[in-house]
């Protein structure tokens, strides 16, 4: 106990050196824990992109491309599926609801999704959150468009604005649907998912855009453009659909039935599994980032070691006096180990506290701008592990100056200069 008192007094006397060392460790711990917390938030945000959807169904192909195209709107689907196939499963007795998805158009690089009312009613994210409209109403009419929150903000669009959608999903499309402008009727509330960056029209609206087209190309110049007759519009194909089963148990039966559906080759995925698979791919980047932060922590600890070790020579007199008043050599050793451990303990505590204070202060900003659900991220065993690892490393590194002091105490005895 007296040694601890001595260690604290000694650290307090060297306020500047101690604070700088504590600060460097706090910064390193902050970086390490900050990266970890943001990683957890990213993972929570990522896996919460879609929830309560049991299966996603698309044309035969890979699971990852299907997930990327239908949920993240990245890349194009390998093929379409027939409206009849969709209807077959939409009315299946084990199926509670379905959301049809048809993609292929865009607005200034943002994907346009053709869907129906089921999307607004059944799409869920991050646990049980459903979609809600910040303004206006959902798309009903042929040329209605509902905007994700980010698009409305970024492009400065408001209700009643007319926009022209472009054919294809590239940002610089050479074909646009100038003949069929859409009217903004609704703006969705922020979800911090890819929904915010998409536009939603009706399935028939999409057909209307492409009315008179054949084989994916518009009528040639001079060719007579047939007059749009809404009664003649019908949906032949969609890209994919999401599905909620009546009971979780039936999901696997349904999946098997879909994958072996005779009239058309289909693929179905369980979104949670495929999301996990996708995350494990992205996790490499996180591992690299964690390694960099760990390296920074090592540098912080080395700075502490240097500070303690360089002070060693100046402290030879002090050690001789302590030996003269009867301190054992091991107590001198303990004094130095305690000093380094104490520096690391304060640094770690400050670093972790700073991360949580920052995350708490910036949680709204981070959620709005980066879509990371900070509020869901609490303490984790990983943070405790980092804290313990920092303390143990500091104590181990502290052994080096401690051993130096111990050796000095034996060599110098009472004779230090």
């Amino acid at each position, binding site marked *: 106990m*007296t040694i601890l*008192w001595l260690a604290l*007094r*000694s650290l*307090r*006397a*060297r306020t500047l050196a101690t604070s700088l060392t504590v600060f460097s460790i706090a910064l390193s711990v902050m970086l390490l824990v900050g990266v970890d917390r943001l990683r957890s938030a990213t993972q929570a945000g990522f896996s919460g992109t879609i929830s309560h959807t049991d299966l996603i169904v698309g044309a035969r192909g890979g699971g990852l491309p299907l997930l990327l195209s239908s949920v993240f709107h990245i890349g194009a689907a390998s093929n379409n599926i027939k409206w009849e196939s969709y209807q077959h499963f939409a009315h299946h007795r084990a199926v509670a609801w379905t959301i049809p998805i048809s993609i292929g158009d865009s607005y200034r690089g943002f994907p346009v999704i053709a869907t129906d009312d089921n999307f607004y009613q059944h799409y869920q994210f991050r646990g049980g959150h459903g979609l809600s409209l910040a303004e206006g109403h959902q798309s009903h009419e042929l040329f209605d468009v509902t905007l994700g929150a980010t698009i409305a903000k970024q492009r400065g669009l408001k209700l009643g604005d007319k926009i022209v959608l472009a054919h294809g999903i590239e940002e610089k499309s050479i074909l646009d649907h100038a003949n069929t402008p859409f009217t903004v009727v609704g703006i969705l509330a922020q979800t911090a998912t890819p929904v915010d960056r998409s536009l939603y029209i009706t399935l028939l609206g999409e057909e209307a855009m492409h009315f008179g087209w054949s084989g994916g190309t518009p009528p040639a110049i001079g060719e007579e453009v047939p007059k749009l007759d809404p009664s003649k519009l019908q949906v032949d194909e969609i890209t994919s659909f999401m599905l909620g089963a009546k009971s979780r148990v039936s999901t696997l039966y349904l999946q098997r039935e879909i994958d072996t559906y005779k009239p058309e080759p289909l693929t179905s995925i369980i979104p949670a599994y495929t999301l996990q698979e996708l995350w494990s791919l992205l996790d490499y980047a996180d591992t690299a980032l964690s390694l960099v932060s760990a390296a920074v922590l090592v540098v912080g600890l080395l700075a502490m070691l240097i500070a303690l070790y360089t002070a060693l020579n100046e402290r030879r*007199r*002090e050690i*001789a*006096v*302590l*030996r*003269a*008043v*009867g*301190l*054992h*050599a*091991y107590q001198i050793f303990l004094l130095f180990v305690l000093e380094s451990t104490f520096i690391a303990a304060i640094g770690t505590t400050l670093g972790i506290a700073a991360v949580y204070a920052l995350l708490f202060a910036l949680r709204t900003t981070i959620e709005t701008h980066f879509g990371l659900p900070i509020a869901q991220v609490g303490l984790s065993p990983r943070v405790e592990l980092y804290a313990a690892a920092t303390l143990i490393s500091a104590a181990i590194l502290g052994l080096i100056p401690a051993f130096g002091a111990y050796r000095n105490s034996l060599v110098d*005895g*009472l*004779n230090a200069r």
Partner: protein
Amino acid sequence: MTEAVPPPAVELTDVRFSYTSSKPILSIESLILPAGLRTFLHGPSGSGKTTLLSLISGILTPQQGGVQVLGQQLTKLSPGKRDTLRGSSIGYIFQTFNLIPYLTVAENISIPCRFHPERRARIASPLGEEVARLAKRLDLDAHLDAPVTRLSTGQQQRVAIARAVIGSPALIIADEPTSSLDTDRRDDFLTLLDEVLQGATLLFVSHDLSLASHFDQTLSLRSLNGAAQ
């Protein structure tokens, strides 16, 4: 006749000590410090004074011979027990830089008692009161809570006296404690040291022979140390 004489506080017999195996620094056939006496040990710089003090205080152990301190044969004690004996029964005053820089004057004075309950137990009053009493006696009471770095050299040496005598250790060792003081301060220092000894054995080491008159007996390290001859 021999039974009437109290056992010496320090007795060295046939001690040989060397840092390297080649040449011994100290070779002392016999050195006796009678209990309760103030002994002046004279030796020029480099004659092995500090090495001798390290042997007596149990920091070093001789390669040969016996060092008996306050009835204990140091060569038979473990390093830990020697540290405890030093802390609880020996007060030590250095030539200079006697104090722990990050402790206050009061904390510097009381530190041996914080680490050694035996020394603390010899004080009847509360520790704080004893520190205050000694500080007053040594004219340090105005500086008790001050950092030691604010003190003059003379004041620092008086703090060192207080720390050496607190808890009444039986042996006080002073290693050239006056060499950093001017003549007036040096005499004050010796007078004060005398006053607070309370019957303890004093071993005072200096190269300055003019101090010898203040002590009960004078020894010359040069004549004691066979290795220096």
